[in-house]
């Protein structure tokens, strides 16, 4: 067969075997016991030509509803924010996309400088002293921050507020279970007596999973009074308007960076950003890029503080992580530069205004109430419905609207609640259509049709 990705011709292969001193290819397989050698993979489908394959994948893609066929009011950690065309256009350049981890800095200055800029931008958003080169996603970033806090504090209990994303809580639990640390989950009302001298850290999300704002200074003081670290999970877009976590003395700040220039992509790949106070720099997980000089005194960038890492420290490393999400970090860098100070503020303001308009419109429907009436929120809010949220979601999907997330699965007492996110990508017309369609569905529901 011929395959475009393999360059050797039959003649090349003959010449190469000759140079090797092998009579036939099978001679190269000599070290493999014959009982486990195979000649073909019977279960794999046959090869496909590019045009046929593209048609096949297009047809699979066409089976899915998505943000270009449906109005997306789903959030819960992944958001349909505006992505300027310039982001994908630049980040997909082969010079970036097809490079390896920059182990040889002389040939990788482009990506290294971009990561240095990324670290600077994450510090600018969060107000923290240092940022790493990024992690897999917010959930694993938080799990790593929990492990880091236990190492720093020599304590074995992590207190997690239950308004943290339910999936993030589950991932933290998985990691703590594996490492033998204790996981304690509490509600806002029960947190007071729980933090004590065994607590390594307190983890709080702001805005919460339900979109509301918390008095973060209160939780910061609570953690610090017991000598625990204060770990915060944030929405980076909200930080264009909201106080950076440094101002309420957060020790570690983690968040999901997908909103900064990456597609939703069915939830992956994602971008976990991770920033902290300077004093923890040597306990930090993940890659870090630093600036230095070359032999001629020219400025250059290189991966630094490598002695924390697994390839040198092996079982004593601060983390087993040996990659970052470089290409998504690059996209976030381009996104934050293109939007810049004014664009990021405008994006956040639009989300804020539209979410509040949507909330007031939707909650004006008979039987619908704002689940967190009286609390401040950013771009996401929960409403209580007179009809089952699952029914609403299914019926709205038929009207080409992704209506939101049913909360009953995640919280007791929320079986009638729907979490709705509104970004700057939704127009007034979209929101009005949502409200009208929902009104129709509620009418059907209450008249028993």
């Amino acid at each position, binding site marked *: 067969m011929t395959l475009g990705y393999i360059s050797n011709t039959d003649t090349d292969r003959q010449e190469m075997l000759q140079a090797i001193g092998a009579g036939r290819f099978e001679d*190269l397989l000599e070290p493999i016991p014959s009982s486990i050698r195979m000649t*073909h993979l019977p279960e794999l489908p046959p090869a496909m030509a590019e045009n046929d394959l593209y048609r096949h994948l297009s047809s699979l893609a066409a089976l899915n509803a998505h943000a270009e066929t449906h109005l997306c009011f789903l959030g819960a950690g992944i958001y349909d924010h505006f992505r300027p065309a310039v982001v994908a256009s630049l980040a997909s350049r082969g010079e970036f*996309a097809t490079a390896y981890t920059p182990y*040889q*800095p002389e040939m*990788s200055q482009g990506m290294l400088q971009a990561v240095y800029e990324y670290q600077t931008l994450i510090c600018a958003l969060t107000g923290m002293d240092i940022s790493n080169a990024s992690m897999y996603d917010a959930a694993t970033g938080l799990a790593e921050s929990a492990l880091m806090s236990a190492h720093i504090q020599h304590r074995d209990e992590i207190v997690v507020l239950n308004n943290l994303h339910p999936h993030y809580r589950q991932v933290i639990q998985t990691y703590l279970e594996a490492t033998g640390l204790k996981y304690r989950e509490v509600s806002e009302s029960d947190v007071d007596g729980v933090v004590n001298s065994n607590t390594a850290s307190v983890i709080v999300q702001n805005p919460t999973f339900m979109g509301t704002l918390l008095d973060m200074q209160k939780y910061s003081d609570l953690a610090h009074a017991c000598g625990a670290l204060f770990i915060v999970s944030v929405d980076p877009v909200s930080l264009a308007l909201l*106080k950076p976590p440094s101002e309420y003395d957060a020790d570690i700040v983690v968040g999901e960076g997908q909103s900064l220039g990456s597609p939703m992509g069915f939830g992956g790949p994602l971008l976990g950003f991770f920033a902290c106070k300077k004093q923890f720099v040597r306990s930090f997980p993940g890659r870090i890029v*630093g600036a230095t000089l070359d032999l001629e005194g020219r400025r250059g960038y290189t991966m630094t503080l490598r002695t924390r890492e697994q390839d040198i420290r092996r079982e004593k490393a601060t983390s087993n992580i040996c990659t970052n999400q470089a290409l998504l970090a*690059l996209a976030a860098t381009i996104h934050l530069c293109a939007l810049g100070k004014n*664009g990021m503020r405008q994006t956040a303001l639009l989300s804020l205004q539209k979410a509040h308009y949507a909330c007031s419109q939707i909650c004006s429907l008979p039987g619908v109430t704002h689940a967190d009436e009286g609390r401040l929120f950013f771009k996401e809010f929960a409403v209580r419905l007179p009809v089952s949220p699952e029914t609403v979601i299914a019926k709205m999907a038929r009207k080409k609207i992704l209506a939101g997330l049913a909360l009953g699965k995640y919280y007791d007492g929320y079986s009638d609640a729907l979490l709705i996110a509104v970004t700057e990508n939704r127009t007034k017309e979209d929101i009005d259509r949502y409200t009208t369609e929902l009104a129709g569905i509620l009418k059907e529901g209450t008249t028993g049709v």
Partner: protein
Amino acid sequence: MNSEPLIFEKSRAGRIGANLPQCDVPEQDIVELLGGDNLRSMLPLPEVSELDVVRHFTHLSHRNYSIDEGLYPLGSCTMKYNPRINEKTASLPGFAALHPLQPVETAQGALQLVYELQGMLASICGMDATTIQPSAGAHGELLAMMMIRAYHRDRGDTARTTVVIPDSAHGTNPASAATCGFRVKSIPSNQKGCTDLNALRNALGPDTAALMLTNPNTVGLFESDILEICSLVHEAGGLVYCDGANMNAMLGITRPGDMGFDVMHFNLHKTFSTPHGGGGPGCGAVSVKKCLEPYLPIPVVTRSDEGTYLLDENRPCSIGRIHSFYGAFLIAVRAYTYIRTLGASGVRAVGENALLNANYVRARLSKAYDIAYNSPVCMHEVVLSAARQKQANGIRALDISKRLMDYGVHPPTNYFPLIVPEALMIEPTETESKQTLDEFIDIMLKIAKEAAEEPELLRTAPHSTLVSRLDETMAVKNLDLRYEALFAGSPHSTVESSS
């Protein structure tokens, strides 16, 4: 261009690089909506035009070497060509614009793709079930350690606290095992560069939870005793983990599942051609035998009898969740596209040409350089040693690596595996042609000659790159991890300008 300023240095107050909509809903007072105490006073982000952004990142791209530019023979990294059709399919809006929490009925195409990829990966490695959730190889290792721990615990086998790992292993292996609370027992390699059976026998016991083994190993050699190795571990009551970083060598030729491995990770970003992206995103899919299937992370993508695809969270034995959602789906789309392009015969052709290319490089360099553990053939990569050059002229693997840059070639992996002195680990991959390899080999031969005749040329290399050797000590000593002027109040006024 000699240097590219930081984007922050190009910032001027009032510029913006995107065209955003005006507000089309009635506006409310922001202080009322968010609370005055919650608002930030300044936002030190750059202010640049779209053209500034395009030029800056285009300049940066010119300062970066890539597979698209030339040979990238990093051993253990499988830097093969990244096909463009994979990028095209991954950017279809029906995949890229999917929300992970939309109703599963509206994401059947995506779930079908994941389900079929799971099956194809399982059949390629000879296992029973697969998850694509781990975000990287190291994440896959960690998941595997969690599953092995849960497996032993459920059998009441709680004394199994040790993981045996050869000294040639990737550093992530011991780091992943240790993260999971296991004690790491390192065993030496034998004189052939492979697992020492006696050392393995001595290391195994009632405390053995698992053996983590890379096959072919990091010296580029197939573990010929693999059947016995797996039997020994199983007899001791442990499980065997395959670090699949070197899977490219085995494609269509042999399968870890048939060797006796119980669990392995793939690097879709190595073996299955998804771009490395300058360090990520990757995907460390994990395949398991039946005995570990109940422990796979939730949610598991399954298919009902009626043919609908589901996200199954009702898995009582599962180790839990390890990713915010379902893993790097868009990477899975690329790997799926690649495997369907290759088909059964193409998968085998990849394995064959990977072996052929590595052995060809090895044969042609074997006179000028020492070959680590001089076995008759290697698998998909060859490990050279610059020990001879070091002894003769004090030339190290690092010097040879840096000199390669002057010839426009990315260096091989150096100083790994740790058991080979002055290691230069070369993995050409199947996508390079004989002509490209010949050019590379000629350069390597020329450098060997230079090492003998003009060693200073190597010691001070590279001479032609944008920067020369960087002062790594200074980078650690005077930590400079962000552009401080942005925070101190810079002359470019990003900080001072009011909104």
